[in-house]
């Protein structure tokens, strides 16, 4: 491994580099703490490799611009935080409805509203799932350390292309602004999924929204031989608006099934010491760093703790959680919000009464002590 691959950089910069590694062609964004560094880094790096960067006039137009660019065949990304993500919801819904691959990074800060811009939280988990109106599905991923940020970001682009969907990367201010050692992989080390384009010839009927047998939807770039319509209205397989019940039902089923039915394939997670764990910690994002510290620390003292670190938050990996927690006496969900993923864990396991929450939402990074205190309470030992 050459020395030049080893870097000591912020998580935000890792994310930007990973996007470039994945083939990013176009970024549109707007400054907002704590995500601004992603835009700044790409403003410099993208034109170096012939890509396009634009700072748009607001968050909404940033999201719209990347959708337009994606339809010309580019791999695209935008980055923001709480208030900006709220603004983008209508356009994210448009990308869901029109099945346009794109990646949206949310470097979470304390909310709601202006909140606490320079401090992290994990308060946007539910918004990432349900922020756009209407029934829909979406893929949301996260990571707790820089090496994983790199891999998960590349994975996000791959999933976006495979399923023709927006993918939200839910990072947070802590991991975004922390500097840590990361090894940038060599080209080819992480496989990339390229844009699947239709092989249907010009003049032959092309259906942009009719899935192939393997479920994939070949695309056609604006400017090439197939002229079709893209609309946020419910539409037929050629992209033209329709209000026919069978078309509305069919499209909505397709949009949700293509993701929910593949929850197993989309699930990414890491496990530590789960085989013999009596009590399991479940966490994600920077909280998982504290959780892992507790597990390593307490195991050295003979406690049988384990950690399930989730990297895919939506579609929620219910089956993984159910299976891994079967034998545990207690499960503690650790997150920096008032309890968002814990609800999903309770729904997933066979004994919801053994699920506990160790959380913090005052703008301070959850500490190992916070987690240990909860473990003591569960054991009946108080703090």
């Amino acid at each position, binding site marked *: 491994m050459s020395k030049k691959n080893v870097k000591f950089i912020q998580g935000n910069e890792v994310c930007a580099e990973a996007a470039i590694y994945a083939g990013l*062609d*176009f970024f*549109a964004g707007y400054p907002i703490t704590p995500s601004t560094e992603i835009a700044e880094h790409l403003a*410099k790096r993208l*034109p*170096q*490799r*012939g890509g*396009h960067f*634009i700072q*748009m*006039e*607001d968050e*909404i*137009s*940033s999201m*719209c*611009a*990347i*959708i*337009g*660019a*994606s*339809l*010309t*065949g*580019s791999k*695209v990304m935008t980055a923001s935080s709480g208030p900006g993500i709220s603004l983008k919801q*209508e*356009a994210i819904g*448009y990308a869901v409805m029109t099945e346009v691959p794109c990646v949206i990074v949310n470097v979470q800060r304390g909310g709601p509203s202006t909140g606490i811009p320079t401090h992290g939280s994990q308060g946007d988990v539910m918004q990432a799932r349900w922020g756009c109106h209407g029934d829909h599905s979406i893929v949301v991923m996260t990571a707790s350390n820089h090496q994983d940020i790199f891999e998960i970001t590349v994975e996000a682009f791959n999933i976006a292309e495979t399923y023709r969907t927006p993918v939200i990367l839910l990072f947070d201010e802590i991991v975004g602004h922390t500097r840590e050692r990361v090894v940038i992989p060599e080209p080819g080390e992480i496989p990339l999924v390229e844009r699947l384009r239709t092989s249907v010839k010009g003049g032959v009927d092309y259906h942009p929204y009719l899935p192939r047998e393997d479920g994939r939807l070949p695309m056609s*770039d*604006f*400017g*090439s*031989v197939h*002229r*079709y*319509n*893209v*609309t*946020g*209205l419910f539409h037929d397989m050629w992209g*033209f*608006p329709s209000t026919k019940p069978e078309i509305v039902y069919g499209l909505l089923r397709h949009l949700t099934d293509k993701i929910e039915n593949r929850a197993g394939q989309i699930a990414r997670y890491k496990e530590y010491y789960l085989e013999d764990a009596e009590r399991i910690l479940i966490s994600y994002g920077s909280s998982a760093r504290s959780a892992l510290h507790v597990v390593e620390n307490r195991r050295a003292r003979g406690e049988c703790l384990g950690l399930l670190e989730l990297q895919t938050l939506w579609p929620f990996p219910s089956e993984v959680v159910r299976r891994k927690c079967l034998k545990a006496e207690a499960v503690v969900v650790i997150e920096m919000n008032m309890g968002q993923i814990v609800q999903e864990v309770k729904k997933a396991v066979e004994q919801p009464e053994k699920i506990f929450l160790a959380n913090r939402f005052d703008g301070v990074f959850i500490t190992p002590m916070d987690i240990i205190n909860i473990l003591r309470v569960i054991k009946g030992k108080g703090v």
Partner: protein
Amino acid sequence: MAIKDYIRGRFFPHMWCPGCGHGIVLNSLLRAVEKLGMSKNEIVMVSGIGCSARISGYVDFHSMHTLHGRALAFATGIKMSRPGLNVIVPMGDGDAMAIGGNHFIHAARRNIDITAIVMNNRIYGMTGGQYSPLSGVGVMATTTPYGNIDHEFDIVEMARAAGASFVARTTTYHAKQATDLIRQAIIHEGFSVVEILSQCPVQFGRRNKGGSAAEMMETYKTNTTPIGSKAKKENSDLIERGIFVQKDIPEYCNEYDKIIEQAMKGQ
């Protein structure tokens, strides 16, 4: 008609009301495209939401029916990543100047090579006749049942102030001029705005004693005049038609190409 080559005929008759000016805008636009001899594959039409926005479904180009007010934002992404495409953006008055006002201002400020056609019927037609920022004082609409109290602004002046390098205005009565202005707007390399006054006999006309579609077009004839005409000097209330701004200034995508060149050299 050769222009029928450019439409998706299977969707005709279109959804616009009898006499709707937007149909005339479509007619004029197709003639401009025909005059230019453009290939259908090189055109992307991006529209927002509203009666105006439905135009994109009827043309046999790459078409994108987006979100209310945001067409120019989508179009910016398309044009920047594929500058060789010809991007045409028809919008309504509310679409472009109310919810879309900010994107209109900045697309003009960037002078990005997009052709914006503002189909101004001074009303929100599709939702049933609410007033728009272009309605004007006294106009009756469903949300101004006692008459509108706020003033419209001048789209041409907005475009000029924001930095658009080609700005023109005409009406559906002046269909030949509309074709010519659209043609010039498309050729122009930079942000082009063509405002076309378009009659809405059903939502605007009926509530404001507009008369029939033809009568509304007659008022476009009597209430407008070429830029700088003698009639305008005698009656300042007349609305001027023609080309207000036409200048050759750096275009956004070309300038960004220079950035790419510079960045790659520094590597």
